[in-house]
């Protein structure tokens, strides 16, 4: 804590009288510095450049019910010092606006556009203030994350709100990639500008599947219902979200989690990373037309899914996490089976690494492709394998240890090639590291309870920040407690949110043929829908199936029932 005090005094001496208030979120290891809106840009630049902190995310909060207008928090990470820094400013209830920090910190571009959309806090001087999250037919004056907007509002579609994407520069032509495209598993629209085969520019429109989960969290769900919804944010690595949320709330109220539960969280997180990286390699192979890789890695991945079903009850969306611990133990008699499965993967994985390193054709398609310089990776806030492939030594497990990662050694893996090949090698080696970690965690898992009873009557206004190293990079959850047994504000930042902003930088000068693999090498995960809509094309009628109907359809349609 002496280091954080030193940080705070450095910041204090730079800002002088501009620092209105300083405080600490003890359990999160976070410093909070409040300044006037007009000093935000200067303070942000100082934190970013002089204190060498990495921009993480902005959180906008509607504090009008508390008589404080609107609040903007810019969260930074002091990697290596295990510290978060929150730069905070309040702005008036009427006509809320803060100066944009994007001109100083490129990584903040989306975060500011997002609070502009969702809370109506204007980011003055933002270089690209177009809509980011809200749909093209959403009314301009309605900001859904404000407290006085109900979660189930259904506004009349507005016209004329669509903001045009950039026109192709010069003589270039537009190559539309998406919203539906063979190698995009989810809808996203990349307007790629190409001169012949060379990419000269890019514009982006996404968030087609925005589900308003944060809004649900602060108006409909209770503290212990949120983990189950949080887990459904991602269809591949959902456990990182439920863990990050639970930890953020545990940090907010200073709740101690039993050690065995922390080990179990780490084991499940690492198993999730193993199956996610196997999945990724398959998709990367598929993008390059190398379907043999896809088929073989997904065959290897399947036993991990069965293993997850065996120890958690589900292949996916495990439902293991609650605030205060986990719901299921991993008893000692299950450990040999887990070790057997991952050791078999390890054996095959070593052969795959060897094959990839020797495959000159494959390396031709990955080397010097999607180049993202170390500087760009830092400036644009890249995280996870995307950053580590660009020689950025950041890994939440090392920088902000959580769960059981302060109990075992974690070997960070980074490569200096700054291209798709580097990101590939990082993931290949990380999988081996995860296998090693799971084995050590299982061997050293202490006995004891797996859950600490947790009273939902928490004091309001407590804040917590938590990060988890997801397979795709750093997941951030920020929680502020409320007074009706649910969060007042819950903010989620998935790693792809940070990584996608680097896509433009890494595509410039590449060839059209490299666009899919450049995108793929970031392992993007846009969002996943949690319910299905079936549209009858002839009548145009939309039918939304209820959960029970879907359940029954699945039961009737699949021959495979119950656990394997």
């Amino acid at each position, binding site marked *: 804590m002496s280091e954080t005090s030193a940080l705070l005094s450095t910041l204090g001496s730079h800002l002088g009288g501009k620092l209105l208030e300083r405080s600490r979120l003890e359990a999160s290891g976070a410093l909070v510095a409040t300044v006037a809106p007009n000093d935000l840009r200067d303070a942000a630049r100082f934190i970013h450049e002089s204190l060498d902190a990495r921009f993480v995310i902005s959180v906008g909060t509607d504090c009008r019910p508390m008589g404080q207008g609107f609040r903007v928090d810019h969260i930074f990470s002091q990697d290596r010092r295990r510290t978060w820094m929150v730069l905070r400013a309040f702005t008036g209830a009427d006509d809320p606006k803060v100066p944009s920090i994007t001109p100083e910190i490129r990584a903040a571009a989306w975060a500011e556009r997002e609070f502009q959309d969702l809370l109506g806090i204007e980011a003055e001087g933002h270089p690209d203030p177009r809509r980011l999250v809200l749909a093209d037919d959403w009314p301009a004056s309605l900001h859904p994350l404000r407290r006085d907007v109900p979660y189930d509002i259904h506004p009349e579609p507005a016209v004329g709100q669509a903001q045009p994407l950039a026109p192709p520069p010069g003589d270039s032509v537009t190559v539309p990639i998406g919203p539906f495209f*063979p190698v995009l598993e989810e809808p996203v629209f990349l307007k790629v500008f190409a001169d*012949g*085969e060379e990419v000269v520019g890019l514009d982006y429109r996404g968030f087609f599947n925005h589900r308003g989960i944060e809004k649900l969290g602060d108006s409909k769900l209770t503290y212990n219902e949120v983990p189950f919804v949080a887990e459904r944010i991602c269809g591949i690595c959902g456990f990182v979200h439920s863990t990050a949320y639970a930890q953020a709330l545990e940090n907010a109220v200073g709740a101690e989690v039993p050690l065995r539960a922390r080990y179990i969280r780490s084991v499940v997180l690492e198993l999730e990373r193993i199956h996610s990286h196997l999945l990724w390699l398959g998709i990367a192979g598929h*993008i390059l*037309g190398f*379907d*043999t890789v*896809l088929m073989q890695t997904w065959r290897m991945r399947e036993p991990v899914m069965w293993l997850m079903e065996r120890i958690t009850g589900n292949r996916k969306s495990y439902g293991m996490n609650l605030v205060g611990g986990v719901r299921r133990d991993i008893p000692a008699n299950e450990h040999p089976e887990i070790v057997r499965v991952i050791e078999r993967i390890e054996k095959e994985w070593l052969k795959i690494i060897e094959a990839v390193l020797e495959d000159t*054709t494959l390396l031709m398609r990955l080397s010097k492709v999607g180049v993202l310089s170390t500087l760009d990776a830092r400036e644009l806030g890249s995280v996870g394998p995307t950053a580590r492939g660009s020689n950025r030594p950041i890994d939440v497990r090392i920088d902000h240890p959580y769960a059981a990662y302060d109990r075992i050694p974690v070997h960070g893996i980074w490569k200096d090639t700054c291209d798709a090949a580097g990101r590939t090698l990082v993931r290949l080696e990380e999988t081996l590291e995860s296998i090693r970690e799971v084995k050590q965690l299982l061997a050293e898992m202490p006995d004891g309870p797996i859950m600490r009873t947790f009273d939902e009557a928490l004091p309001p206004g407590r804040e917590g920040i938590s990060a988890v190293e997801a397979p795709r990079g750093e997941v951030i959850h920020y929680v502020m407690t409320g007074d009706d047994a649910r969060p007042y504000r819950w903010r989620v930042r998935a790693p792809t949110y940070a990584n996608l902003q680097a896509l433009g930088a890494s595509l410039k000068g590449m060839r059209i*043929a490299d666009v899919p693999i450049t995108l793929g090498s970031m392992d993007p995960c846009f969002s996943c829908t949690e319910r299905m809509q079936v549209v009858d094309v002839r009548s145009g009628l939309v039918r939304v199936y209820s959960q029970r109907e879907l359940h029954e359809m699945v039961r009737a349609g699949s021959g495979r029932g119950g656990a394997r």
Partner: protein
Amino acid sequence: MNATTVVVLKAVAYLALVLFASPLLEGVMRKVKAIVHSRKGPPITQPYLDLAKLLVKEDVVSEPGPVARFAPPAAFACVLASAFFVPFGVSAPAGSAGDLFVFVYLVTLSTSCVMAAGLAQSSPFSHLGSSREMMMLITAEAVIVISLLGVAVGGHGALLSALAVSGFRWSSLVGLCCYLLAMQALLGKLPFDIPEAEQELMEGPFIEYSGPSLALFKWTFYMKQLVFGSLFFNLFVGWPRATGGSVVGGLLNFAVNFFAVVVLSLVVVLIDATNPRLRIDQSVRFFGGLIAVAALGVGLAALGW
């Protein structure tokens, strides 16, 4: 039997073989690919079902016009016609009516029809596909032509049926290697399926085509597998054949040749299943180098090696 009857019978046999055995070849290749993938794979008759399904569907083309209308049947017809000049264990039915240049023209015309079909649509993907098809044409197809030239120079003639292998020559070994690699590209197989590139261009020139037009394009590629495979065996690889011109001997040669083409297609599909797709610039560089090698083969042949 008089000569005319033989030619007519051969022509009928050729037509039946090229049209109806080529999807089977594709089916076998898909099955082998599935085995490499640890998949069960579709039944080997699947390509027939695919063609049948597409042929009975409505022909929807985004931008109809004479090119969109006639390019698919023209591409199909060119490859079908080119088959009649290719020996298939027996001399070709039209073997004396046209030489290797007629064959090359027909094949190039077929590729040009595919390009035109892509350019007739306004999708950027089909334009990119067509421009890549063009680059493949002037590199990969050039390699094929030059390696065929080497055989012609070595055999002192240009009639494909008269050029069947006779004894080992260094020049034909060089030609064999060049031809085999370029064939992979002409058949649209990995690592050279660059014009179609599903994951990049969503089938490139074919993106806007459906129904019977798409079926004809697919069928064209199935037939090419048979035609180029057979040409490879008859011009570069020799094996003991029944001689004497008896009907049984001819049928035997015919059957052995078909079996050989099936075996060759296994090699093609194994290369396809074990490689990622190259980029067009990488591929152009590769075939640019190969043109020089193939030209060296022609030089060797001219020296009588």
